[in-house]
């Protein structure tokens, strides 16, 4: 809780009115406005004249003490989910706490909205069909969302190739995966619904089946970028049911 409260972002004086407006917009209930000291109270009362009375709860705080603890108590006392701490320190400083606190990065700047997680790599794979090696192109792809230090992906993979005798074999999987989002190495794993397919030599027909499968991946970040990382991916997957191709692919592509 303390950490959550402390995640507030200090704003400069000119944006005091903006900060209050944003806090009101981000919060369902009233916003606790907590001026610290007489000077801050004066400035705050003037500001509150321009906002609806039921949108804010004025809760003055004394100087000194632990700011985080004081703001936590202010949130409890006012039953508000958002509070603004207003201080005079060479200028007006506004620090949001609680629900309306902007997410921040490690260096204290406001974190931008994160785009969807994605993965798209192309390369080659070796599939083993009942012990017979089949080499061919491979694609690994996924799209999903970011979490704290990981991402979930709707994962897709496809590879195809020919046996040494010329049989055309295909293997694909669609599933859900969980992958870390490190800057050097990423690890992923998931479950899939897999489909295997063979074009018959005898009559040209297609035979195959579906079944449960799993995949595991080790992805190395070759180029770390804010928007699109270059990944070298080593991925293994397999069908746990009948038809069992085991696939190992080395692919290169983009992700985030």
């Amino acid at each position: 809780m303390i950490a959550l409260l402390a995640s507030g972002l200090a704003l400069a004086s000119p944006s005091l009115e903006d900060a209050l407006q944003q806090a009101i917009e981000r919060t369902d209930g009233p916003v606790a406005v907590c001026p610290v000291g007489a000077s801050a109270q004066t400035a705050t009362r003037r500001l509150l004249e321009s906002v609806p009375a039921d949108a804010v709860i004025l809760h003055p705080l004394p100087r000194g003490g632990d700011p985080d603890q004081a703001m936590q108590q202010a949130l409890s006392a006012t039953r508000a989910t958002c509070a603004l701490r207003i201080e005079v320190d060479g200028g007006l400083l506004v620090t949001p706490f609680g629900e309306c606190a902007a997410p921040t990065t490690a260096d204290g700047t406001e974190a931008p909205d994160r785009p969807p997680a994605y993965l798209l790599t192309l390369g080659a794979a070796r599939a083993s069909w009942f012990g017979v090696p089949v080499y061919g192109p491979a694609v690994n792809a996924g799209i999903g969302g970011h979490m704290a230090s990981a991402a979930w992906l709707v994962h897709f993979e496809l590879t195809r190739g020919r046996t040494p005798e010329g049989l055309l074999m295909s293997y694909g999987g669609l599933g859900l995966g969980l992958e870390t989002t490190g800057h050097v190495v990423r690890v992923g794993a998931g479950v899939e619904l897999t489909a295997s397919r063979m074009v018959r030599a005898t009559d040209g027909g297609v035979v195959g089946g579906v079944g449960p499968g799993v995949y595991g991946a080790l992805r190395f970040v070759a180029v770390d970028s804010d928007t699109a990382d270059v990944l070298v991916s080593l991925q293994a997957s397999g069908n746990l049911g009948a038809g069992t191709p085991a696939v190992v692919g080395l692919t290169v592509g983009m992700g985030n």
Partner: protein
Amino acid sequence: MVDPKYLVLWTLATVLPGCGLQQSTFHCERAVAHLQSCCDDLDVPDVCADGLFNDAEPPLDSDTVDCILATPCGDARQVCDALNLHQEALEESSWLGGDDPDSGDTGLGVCP
């Protein structure tokens, strides 16, 4: 947002055992593919069972498959002729509604 019913179907599909290609069918097709590269007149659409939802065993046992795969094209004429004859027997059996002409004998004697 994904419709929950599709999520349930997907979960069931990934949890339940799958169905797929039978190993014996796969190797039978490999043997035929190998012979097709040797014999232009090889036409044996029925010599390998479906392999899917089908309990019938392919007519070529694993020893025969291994033998065919090891047979160079120069020596494959006899094997192709034997398979073509077996295909004809399968077709006649199908027309007459009789038993598999080689049921119980999956070696067929096609490979020396």
